[in-house]
């Protein structure tokens, strides 16, 4: 008998359309002190499973029709709600939710929250409780515990909040931890550090972890065994090594493929003449803090050129300014300083003609196709929006062009008479792509085009984008935090950190041999199938510093493994390694001989 077992569990859901089977799990067994990963895309029943284990599923509309969940040999599914609350939730099983922003009560300080949990679960008060709180904060590696205790959740970064939630779970003394996508919405570098922490706790405290994720790569590094959840069923189960290297089901194979970093980036495209030139672009936002006027340097002195037919991938942690950079180039924000030339013409000039031509030639595909399409419009109207703005087509002519665009992105002409909510995420993104191509643009900006659609459609969308790029000789700017996507599409890469470009160069070169310490850290924070296990991941300690008051000198020196004294005062200039590849790091400057680091 295993420590934790699910047997013949069936969960149904009552909706307007009738009764739907959400979960139908024959058997899951987890041994004590091991990690088990459940992988599946959204809508496959992962979260329902977690909620069912804790008996927190809303019933109705949910309904547990049969099955048993055994913890230490006892069927907790048969427990009453009161008994669950008194002896299982928190005491034996704790849960880490996917969104650390919304599951900490904003009106309490961290200290108050910890004190509350320690008092009810450990029976400690006053000084003893405080001492215990320090101990737990130390366990989750929160530095400066004293000030953390006094802080409110909004004063903490995402990674810190997730650590607090883990600390709260530990305070209860739970031995079984359900982690429901604990690192979703966190940056890769912070992801890696949270995972490392969980692994350490699991090893030192002997905790059993059920890890739920939508992505193979994290689970592969973290878990001993993996179960693949598809349409409510476990379709494949086994040792991590086996699943990764010899998946049996087609669905599993697809998940594995999607998470693989493509070691051979897209071939160098034939590049034409210069299309876009960005010169010393700056975008500062004014912020008021305690009556002092400060500026948030979202984009700080960025320059690059992009030739016709190239795909530029912009990567970096959230808050590094990649979206602001693109929005400023697109003229959605007024620039603070700098120039952008498109086809040789100044984009920020006041001439209306220039601006209109620019808008027609530059289109964008947004991250989330659920929000980027007006839910009350027919697809026909959505796709025709750019046509109405520039071409003034009427009736049949307009309809014919819409049909043509829809067929181009792999949809049918009849789809023109549907509403966006009738399509899946992938199909919606196709609609968005059709719209972006309607005005025959030269440059299409892709803002995280695949990050909110499921893995299967992701591959198809990328294929489509590559196809269209060839067909129409488009130039692309691709923003993504997913290096896998970037490696498949881009042939130039810009790595951004705190509003500046840390490294810029040909994709193949940067992927094969990253130069800047930040690029290296970023690339190594992603689990790779070739080297399983957590030890392979590097982490960046600490959160991104605030762009309102960035660190002096090189902005990265606070987190850099190779930082030295000189980094604190010396602002690095771009150093060209070759014609197309530059790095902004002191270790590459001419001052090499003088600096005291001696690391290079």
């Amino acid at each position, binding site marked *: 008998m295993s420590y934790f077992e699910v047997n013949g569990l069936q969960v149904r859901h009552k909706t*307007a359309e009738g009764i739907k089977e959400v979960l139908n799990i024959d058997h899951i067994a987890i041994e004590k002190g091991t990690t088990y990963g459940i992988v599946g895309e959204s809508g496959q029943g992962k979260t329902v499973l977690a909620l069912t284990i804790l008996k927190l599923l809303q019933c109705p509309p949910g309904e547990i029709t049969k099955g048993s969940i055994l913890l230490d040999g006892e069927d907790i599914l048969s427990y009453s709600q009161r008994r669950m609350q008194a002896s299982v939730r928190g005491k034996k099983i704790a849960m880490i939710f996917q969104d650390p922003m919304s599951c900490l009560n904003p009106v309490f300080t961290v200290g108050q929250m910890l004190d509350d949990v320690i008092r009810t679960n450990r029976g400690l008060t006053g000084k003893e409780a405080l001492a215990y709180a320090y101990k737990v904060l130390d366990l989750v590696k929160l530095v400066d515990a004293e000030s953390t205790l006094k802080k409110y959740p909004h004063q903490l970064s995402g990674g810190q909040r997730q650590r607090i939630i883990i600390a709260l779970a530990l305070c209860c003394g739970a031995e079984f931890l359900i982690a429901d996508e604990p690192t979703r919405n966190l940056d890769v570098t912070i992801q890696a550090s949270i995972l490392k922490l969980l692994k350490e706790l699991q090893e030192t405290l002997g905790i059993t972890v059920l890890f739920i994720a939508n992505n193979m790569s994290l689970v592969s590094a973290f878990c001993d065994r993996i179960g693949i959840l598809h349409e409510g069923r476990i379709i494949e189960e086994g040792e991590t090594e086996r699943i990764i290297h010899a998946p049996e089901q087609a669905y599993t194979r697809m998940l594995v493929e999607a998470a693989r970093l493509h070691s051979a980036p897209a071939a160098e495209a034939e590049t034409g003449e210069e299309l876009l030139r960005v010169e010393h672009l700056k975008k500062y936002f004014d912020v008021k803090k305690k009556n002092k006027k400060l500026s948030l340097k979202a984009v700080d002195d960025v320059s690059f050129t992009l030739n016709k037919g190239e795909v530029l991938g912009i990567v970096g942690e959230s808050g590094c300014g990649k979206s602001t950079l693109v929005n400023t180039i697109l003229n959605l924000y007024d620039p603070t300083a700098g120039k952008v030339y498109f086809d040789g013409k100044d984009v920020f000039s006041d001439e209306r003609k220039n601006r209109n031509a620019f*808008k*027609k030639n530059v289109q964008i595909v947004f991250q989330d196709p659920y*929000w980027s*399409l007006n839910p009350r419009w027919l697809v026909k109207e959505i796709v025709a929006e750019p046509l109405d703005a520039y071409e003034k087509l009427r009736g049949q002519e307009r309809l014919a062009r819409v049909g043509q665009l829809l067929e181009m992105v792999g949809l049918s002409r009849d789809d023109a008479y*549907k509403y966006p909510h009738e399509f899946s995420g992938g199909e919606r993104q196709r609609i968005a792509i059709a*719209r972006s191509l309607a005005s025959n643009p030269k440059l299409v900006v892709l803002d995280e085009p695949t990050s909110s659609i499921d893995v299967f459609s992701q591959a198809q969308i990328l294929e489509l984008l590559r196809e269209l790029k060839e067909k129409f000789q488009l130039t692309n700017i691709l923003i993504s935090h997913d290096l896998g996507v970037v490696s498949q599409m881009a042939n130039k890469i810009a790595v951004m950190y705190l509003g500046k470009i840390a490294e810029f160069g040909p994709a193949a070169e940067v992927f094969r041999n990253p130069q800047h310490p930040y690029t290296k850290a970023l690339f190594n924070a992603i689990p790779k199938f070739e080297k399983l296990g957590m030890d392979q991941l590097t982490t960046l300690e600490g959160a991104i510093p605030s762009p309102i008051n960035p660190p002096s000198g090189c902005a990265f020196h606070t987190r850099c493994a190779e930082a030295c004294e000189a980094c604190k005062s010396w602002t690095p200039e771009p150093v060209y390694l070759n014609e197309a590849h530059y790095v902004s790091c002191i270790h590459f400057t001419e001052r090499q001989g003088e600096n005291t680091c001696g690391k290079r």
Partner: protein
Amino acid sequence: MNQKMKDILRPKLKELRDMIFMLRRNALTMAAVIVLILILILALLAPAIVPYPQDIADKTNLSEKFQPPSSAHLFGTDELGRDVFSRVLYGTRISLSTAVLAVALSLIIGVPLGAVAGTFGGAVDEVIMRITDIFLSFPPMLLAILLVSMLGPSLNNAILAIALAWWPWYTRIVRGQAISLKERKFIQAAETIGTPKWKIVAKHIIPNTISPVVVQASMDMGGVILTIASLSYLGLGAQAPSPEWGLMISTSRNYFPDIWWYSVFPGIAIFITVLAFNLLGDGVREILDPKTRKK
């Protein structure tokens, strides 16, 4: 029906089915819907089904005045011998149509102003919202009374006055919606596409604010009916011999409580209609806004 029409109608039908499904889970709203449908049918058929059509107007029959309810006169008769039942039934027409007109008029004023204020922001927003603040600083009833006494008492002026007192509420709702919609990606997409600003307001913003506006409007219907009745009661709305409910109650108070039927039946009519609209408003809000849905 051709295929295209079917394709357009299909999602609408599904929406309707979902709505009926939600309605059936909420007995009170369902009851309100049934009552309102009945009231609507009565209002539409009133000229054809009232037992004494000539009593709607000025006809006097003093020999039959102040008859208590009987089989000939279900709700009795009034001081001029007119059938109260016929008049109350006919009054449904007046109340419903004036309320719909008044709400529609305030929507026509309020919604575009709110959408423009929310979308453009800055000085435009300041000006529009400060004007609405001025209107909102008076109780709507008081403002309506003030406006009618300036315009002169009549039913049409009462409708106009109510619309003028009511639009700021819709402006506020729509402005709030517009501000949050402005951040949505499809608006940004429209901007990068180069769609002109007025088109963004008319085609993107306003259609997406419909849900909360419909909720507010359906909840307001009851209040507007009550306000019109109140204005008529004060002699500022409908004028004799109109069978408006408020006006009937106003006349009847001279004879109360001896001639109780003269006041009570118009009162019950107001009560049922307003209650049904309020319940409908709550129900619609629950359907459109899942957050308030009961568990």
